């Protein structure tokens, strides 16, 4: 027993009702922060879920394709040129376009994003797609994103409907999810079918062939240095393309949406407001506790305890509250993320980093409250406890 009496802990825990209220208050703020941050993250995460699913270490796009939103293509021979460099194992072209999709149930037309590639290239290696490679070889077949908006209509295998005003037969679904560029959902087809549908469109439309590529993917040989290779490729290939590591490309895409939409800002603001709601709740609880014990704290001062000691007691109490309240808040948020994701199709992801960030925010929140509440203790005059 060489320890100080853990006064902060005893003060916090000895009234069960008070403790539960305190933890509920902290947990409430934690849940608010998680939910608003979750919506904000979902918004941005969903913008890059396709990019994350693509199987490439290096991404090549047209120099002026500053975001996935911009439909600029580059010459396919750049990919062949890149493939010749030492350290590049394979180069895959990905063709994308926006196409009208007829809802098989309502016959209404909706825009979808078409993703097409050579089926022998593992461009989008989702197990659902890999399993249907031979079916996709058949002319005028496609798979549709099962997380598409409901406006796309029923997606049962064998459904026959129209894409770009031409007949298409569904051979299955895969889970990906929508983003700002995808319209109502995604369609996957072979590059051969892509040519079938989009090479002979009317004069108003953008005719497609396999000589221009929307996104190029490079696979690196084991042990190849990605950043050195990107530098070499950038120097040696013509300047009509830009070459990124996959991670950089994803970050650039995220930055584009963060700069060009303010809905993210709204959610950031709500998150910050939740933080301050938490500060107020925790402050109220701590202040009440400190005010109730002012005579005891003043007695400690009379006994020779310093203001600094009392500060550490209140701060410890605040930190304990933060840590204990975070746990239920986290668990509730985790459940709410699941429920929200299931109900809305939003990409609500709880990552370790995000959980840790919110934990840190929670502790800081409690520290601020503690720092304000402690002024009450510091101003208590030990002389005042006499004669009361």
């Amino acid at each position, binding site marked *: *027993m060489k320890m100080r009496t853990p006064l902060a802990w005893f003060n916090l825990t000895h009234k069960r009702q008070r403790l539960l209220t305190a933890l509920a208050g902290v947990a409430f703020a934690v849940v608010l922060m998680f939910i608003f941050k979750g919506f904000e993250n979902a918004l941005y995460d969903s913008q890059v879920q396709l990019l994350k699913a693509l199987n490439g270490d290096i991404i090549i796009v047209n120099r002026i394709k500053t975001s996935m939103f911009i439909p600029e293509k580059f010459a396919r021979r750049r990919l062949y040129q890149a493939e010749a460099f030492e350290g590049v194992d394979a180069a895959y072209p990905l063709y994308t376009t926006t196409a009208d999709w007829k809802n098989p149930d309502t016959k209404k037309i909706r825009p979808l994003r078409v993703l097409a590639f050579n089926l022998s290239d593992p461009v989008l290696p989702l197990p659902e797609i890999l399993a249907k490679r031979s079916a996709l070889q058949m002319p005028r077949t496609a798979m549709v994103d099962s997380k598409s908006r409901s406006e796309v209509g029923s997606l049962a295998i064998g459904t026959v409907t129209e894409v770009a005003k031409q007949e298409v037969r569904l051979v299955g679904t895969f889970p990906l999810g929508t983003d700002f560029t995808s319209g109502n959902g995604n369609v996957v087809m072979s590059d051969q079918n892509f040519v079938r549908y989009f090479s002979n469109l009317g004069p108003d439309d953008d005719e497609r062939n396999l000589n221009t590529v929307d996104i190029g993917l490079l696979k690196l040989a084991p042990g190849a240095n990605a950043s050195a290779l990107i530098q070499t490729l950038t120097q040696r290939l013509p300047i009509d393309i830009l070459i990124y590591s996959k991670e950089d490309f994803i970050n650039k895409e995220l930055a584009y949406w963060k700069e060009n939409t303010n809905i993210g800002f709204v959610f950031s603001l709500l998150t910050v407001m939740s933080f301050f709601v938490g500060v107020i709740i925790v402050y109220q609880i701590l202040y009440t506790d400190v005010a109730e014990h002012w005579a*005891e704290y003043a007695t400690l001062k009379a*006994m020779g*305890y310093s203001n600094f000691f009392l500060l550490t007691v209140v701060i410890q109490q605040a930190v304990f509250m933060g840590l204990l309240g975070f746990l239920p808040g986290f668990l509730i948020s985790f459940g709410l993320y699941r429920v929200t994701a299931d109900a809305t199709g939003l990409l609500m992801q709880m990552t370790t980093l995000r959980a840790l960030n919110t934990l840190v925010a929670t502790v800081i929140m409690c520290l601020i409250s503690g720092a304000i509440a402690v002024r009450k203790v510091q101003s208590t005059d030990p*002389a005042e406890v006499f*004669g009361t």
Partner: protein
Amino acid sequence: MSHLSNDLPSDSPHFSSEEIAVSVRHLDYYYGQGDLRKQVLYDINLELSKGQIVIMTGPSGSGKTTLLTLIGALRFLQEGSLNVLGQELVGLSKSELVEVRRNIGFIFQAHNLFDSLTASQNVEMAVEVLQDWGNKRQRAVEMLAQVGLAERVDYKPKALSGGQKQRVAIARALVNQPSLILADEPTAALDKQSGRDVVTLMQTLAKEQGCTILMVTHDNRILDVADRIVNLVDGHLESDQNFTAFSQTHDPKALV
């Protein structure tokens, strides 16, 4: 009433060669600033010799608590001279005052125990202020045993009677063996018997530890424990005598 015997100091305030615990000289004290400045203590001169039990009485508002808090290093002082346990308090900084307090045991009318801590833990908090960790529990338990609470060391205040709580507060004040104990109406919240017990206990422990006690009280049933009784009226120290002399000159009913 064994303490009513005649073994009190024969004639009151002569401490000549004895060691002095507290020495107050020409002390004035004011509350407030500017126009609101109000003097509450006037030219107080008082010496408490070591080991004495001194009771301070006086009408309400006469300045007893004020004087006690000044001696207890709980207030800033600019004028006069106030020497406590060999340390001049006038002009000391706040942190220096905090140091002085560590040698003083305070007992208040309210027990001011943390209701989240057991009796022992409340007492241990006092031991810890001196950075003494090793045997704090043992010291707290021994002290609680001395105040007759050996069976109650792990009880929380809620489970203790008023008198028991005040005894825990006394244990807390005495556990560091302070040279000076300042008590402000320690029996006011207690019934007659508990009040008597608490005061007797303070007296016994003080005699054992040789510490000086200055106690403010309105309770004339406990005046007999005093070696000396000082009377404060309107901020002036009026009389200073032993119990026998005091009880002859004061109608007991007037003391309440």
